[in-house]
């Protein structure tokens, strides 16, 4: 049985180019429990697919630890079916 997952919408600040998108994606995907992260430069946001126990502060901390970017949680949505 697969573990339940959630989509976590984040606002992301500080990105100016595609390299930034790569850095933020890597930072988010390094957080234990994160399955994937889709980061968008134009809308300055990300959608993280993760286990429900992944906290907003862990995601934000991973992005801020880059020293260049910021992230904050907007909301989380249950994956389809729920």
């Amino acid at each position, binding site marked *: 049985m697969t573990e339940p997952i959630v989509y976590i919408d984040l606002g992301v*600040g500080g990105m100016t180019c595609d390299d930034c998108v790569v850095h933020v994606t890597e930072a988010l995907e390094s957080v234990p429990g994160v399955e994937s992260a889709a980061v968008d430069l134009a809308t300055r946001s990300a959608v993280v697919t993760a286990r429900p126990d992944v906290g907003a502060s862990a995601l934000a901390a991973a992005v801020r630890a880059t020293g260049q970017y*910021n992230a904050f949680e907007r909301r989380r949505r249950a994956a389809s079916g729920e």
Partner: protein
Amino acid sequence: MSDHVDFLILGSGSTAFAAAIRAADLGARVAMAERRTLGGTCANRGCLPSKNLIEAARIVREAAHPRYDGLIAGTVGVEFAALIAQKDDVVREYRAKKYASVADGLADLELLEGDATFVDPHTVRVGDRMVTGDRILVATGSRPTIPAIPGLADIPYLTSDLLDADEAGRLTELPASLAVLGGGYIAVELAQMFSRLGSRVTIVARSGLLSGYEPDLGRTLAEVFTDEGIEVLAGSRVDHVRGDASGVEVAIEQAGARRVVSAERLLVATGRTPNTDTLGLERAGVAVDADGFVTVNAQLRTSLPHVWAAGDVIGRQHRSQTATPVGARQGRIVADNAFADAGKAFDGTVIPRAIFTDPPIAVVGETEAEVRARHYPAVAATTPLMYVPRAGAVHKPTGLVKFIVSTVDERVLGVHVIGESAPEIIHEAAMAMHFKAGLPDFIDLIHVYPTMSEALKIGAQAFSRDVTKLSCCAE
């Protein structure tokens, strides 16, 4: 644009803009609501237009009163309407450059025009639109206080809104005479400005000038004002006012005697009232204090965790001051706390502040009375500026510098200056206090000779030496 944003800011002054810019950097989608003109008080009807006109008034005054023997007094005529028009151009250009185009340049910032009122903790009606914000900043500033004086509601009067470039309250004709109610910084700045431009000015103040500041400052200023022909009626209680468009009469009681001050126009400058009365804060559950200022903790959070307040609307809490750069700093702190969990507290210990009279005034830190009130061991010394070489060289000897210093560790607790260039030189004192410097640091530092900044060195030396006997460069 959706009607939901990450950050909803009420107001568009310097506080709001600093918060918006920082929040946008941090990734937030921001909306800013404004019911008057974009840019708030400072740009439109505060700092900027007042400093513009005050400098013009200084030119008029200096032409008529050159300080040097051998310079012959002349006349710089005042074409008031044209003077106001150039001020309006300065304001509009500044507003376009520093506010409107900054707003245009921010990704995901929307400006909402209209009066903002809370509907519930997350929803604000702006005009006829409903907007929700995950986080909200109240940065609605302040407006002139209108005191409860019998008759005031029935007569025309001016407030500092007279400085506005575009609103109905603006002034375009120089009054032949002006009665000024109030003795605070706005009252004294505008009183001297009008006097120098040609109005006959009478100040009616409840206490002395600039109460709350070091008493020497207001006292010195009152002497200068009297010399310049401004009548200062300190310790006056206003009984009632009456009049019409052609003139006003202010009935006062001063030292037990009754008297009537007549003037063409009346300027009410008796303080500032926070813009919170129509915000519907009670519907959101945001607490205000007895005077209507929004209650905040040191991190500038209100009683509701997702609502912050900053700038003039929080008044003097946490040693804040109602000044533009203070609000801007607070706006930035709010954005950091709201979107980067920064947990930053506002620290109002070192806030330099100036009053742009002539001579100007600048202060940083505590007054002697404040230090005494908390029973902290300290000493104070006041030095007249006539001991500063530059003051004598350029015939600007009026003024003084006062230091208040801890006797525990010689740390400087407050510096208060009235005199030439005070608003510039105060930064040395502020920087010193920022780095927790002691009195000896002011003395150790070689100062440029001859500058008014030497006043700080000499003011510091006054604790240990007879400053009347210093040689060149205060060594």
